[in-house]
């Protein structure tokens, strides 16, 4: 293997993350659940702490020094996110608590206003529940019909019926960029082009894609892109929604309240211009500022290197898991997938596996990963899932494999 300088060194990166100094049951922490939430570097923790210690005031309100500092840092984080996602206009970033809230904002703010009875919403069997349930709620109100792109046995989108599933009745395609359950990377460029060709908009669930893959919303030409800060080194309850300006202009707000209004009368109100018309009440100021620092951190690493590192560890994990006889769901080619590796080992139930692995300091996820459509497609109630991020090293995979052998012995 080449020792190119452009390969990230997980061991060095790990030192920025204080949580890796602690032990679990006396063993070093091997954290393999970044698809659920990532760990936080000291830089992000310091940014949140510094905000509360030195700058805390509500944003967009106080006409005093602290209020101005808070507003500047909050809006500064918005500008950083716009740059990170390749949008030339910071106003195209609406702050939310994360992907779930962002997708609900699209399904409600856009969907309830523009979908009519008989209109179709195209989803896929890969989707996380947060890109399914909001559309079901909207369909109940509007009479829109939900359709689903199925999956191949390899866990890729089955596009053989795309021509009929994506038709002139389709008003929006809502699709993940990278599966949280089985890692699949979807062909977004081609899907967006096909959707636009029939006049449909495209909303991307980028909860998994954004932390692991460079994204340019301009190049993709997507209409909406939802992301979660806490999965990309940022604080919990940070994140947002990118949308094209014309959609933000046309959409209704989802929440009413303070700071989103222009004027309030007895019978009606007028809204502030976007993005602020979508940001009612006191926002997650410290968290979004922390997220701004998180994307600084990721940008310094370089998203191309972040992706290359993930691909390398994922390839190694797939090799090792398959070699010990684990059943891996989803694509087996690391280049076609992200780092969420779902598997069954022997016939050990994922819950039992996760419990025994925890004893070895190894944290994996066991469950349906909020993706019951995927689980049902593969005929399993749940799976064990290991997922990787910038601070993981190949030795983490080795420890996982050793712990799996322990589990096998335990239940033998």
């Amino acid at each position: 293997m080449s020792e190119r300088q452009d390969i990230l060194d997980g061991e060095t990166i790990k030192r920025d993350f204080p949580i890796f100094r602690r032990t679990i049951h006396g063993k070093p922490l091997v954290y393999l659940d970044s698809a659920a939430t990532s760990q936080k570097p000291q830089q992000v923790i310091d940014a949140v702490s510094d905000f509360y210690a030195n700058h805390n005031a509500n944003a967009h309100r106080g006409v005093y020094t602290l209020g101005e500092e808070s507003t500047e840092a909050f809006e500064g984080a918005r500008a950083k996110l716009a740059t990170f996602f390749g949008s030339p206009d910071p106003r195209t970033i609406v702050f939310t608590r994360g992907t779930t809230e962002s997708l609900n904002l699209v399904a409600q703010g856009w969907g309830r206003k523009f979908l009519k009875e008989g209109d179709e919403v195209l989803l896929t069997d890969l989707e996380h529940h947060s890109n399914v349930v909001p559309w079901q709620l909207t369909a109940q109100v509007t009479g829109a019909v939900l359709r689903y792109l199925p999956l191949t046995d390899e866990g890729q989108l089955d596009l053989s019926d795309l021509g009929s599933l994506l038709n002139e009745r389709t008003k929006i395609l809502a699709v993940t960029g990278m599966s949280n359950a089985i890692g699949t990377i979807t062909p977004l460029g081609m899907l967006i082009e096909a959707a636009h060709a029939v006049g449909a908009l495209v909303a991307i669930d980028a909860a998994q894609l954004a932390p692991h893959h460079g994204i340019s919303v301009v190049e993709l030409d997507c209409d909406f892109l939802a992301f979660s800060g806490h999965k990309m080194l940022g604080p919990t309850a940070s994140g947002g929604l990118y949308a094209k300006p014309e959609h933000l202009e046309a959409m209704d707000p989802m929440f009413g309240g303070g700071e989103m209004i222009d004027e309030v009368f007895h019978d009606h109100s007028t809204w502030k211009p976007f993005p602020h018309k979508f940001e009612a009440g006191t926002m997650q100021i410290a968290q979004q500022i922390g997220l701004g620092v998180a994307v600084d951190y990721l940008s310094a690493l370089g998203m191309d290197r972040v992706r290359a590192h993930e691909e390398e560890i994922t390839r190694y994990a797939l090799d090792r898991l398959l070699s010990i006889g684990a059943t891996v769901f989803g694509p087996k080619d690391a280049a076609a997938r992200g780092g969420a590796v779902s598997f069954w080992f022997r016939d050990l139930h994922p819950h039992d596996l996760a419990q025994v692995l925890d004893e070895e300091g190894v944290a994996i996820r066991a469950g349906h990963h909020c993706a019951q459509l995927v689980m049902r497609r593969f005929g399993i109630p749940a799976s064990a899932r290991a997922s990787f991020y910038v601070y993981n090293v190949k030795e983490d995979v080795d420890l996982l494999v050793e712990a799996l052998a322990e589990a096998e012995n335990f239940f033998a």
Partner: protein
Amino acid sequence: MALDDIYKETILDHYKNPRNKRELPGAVVTKTKNNPLCGDEITVSANLEDGKLLEVTFQGAGCSISQSSASMMTEAVAGKAVDDAMGLAANVRGMLAGEVEPDEGAFGDLVALKGVVKYPIRIKCAVLAWDVLQDAVSETDTASA
């Protein structure tokens, strides 16, 4: 090893050699439920006569905790009056919540589940079979009422 707190010999034994894990032809009640946390599904079937559980069986797949709890349950409640079985169910829940000190005589093998109290997320696994039994039995109440 701390794992022994949760995985007692008894639990592993019931997991590897589940008792009464089969269909119950002609069952008076059959009920299926799943654990929303992990999607595990358990079906419990029972034959009753005069308010007494004659035979109880279970089917389904799940983790060692849910499977062993179901296996132990089918042994523990067979031959019991429905009211007594429900009383035991309440006590098992109480034990798993750390509120009831199990009476070894009444609990038998079920005492092995006591260690689950330290693993709150697994309590749902341990009570699943008991929830299904309770649902199944309450349906007979409604039917006979």
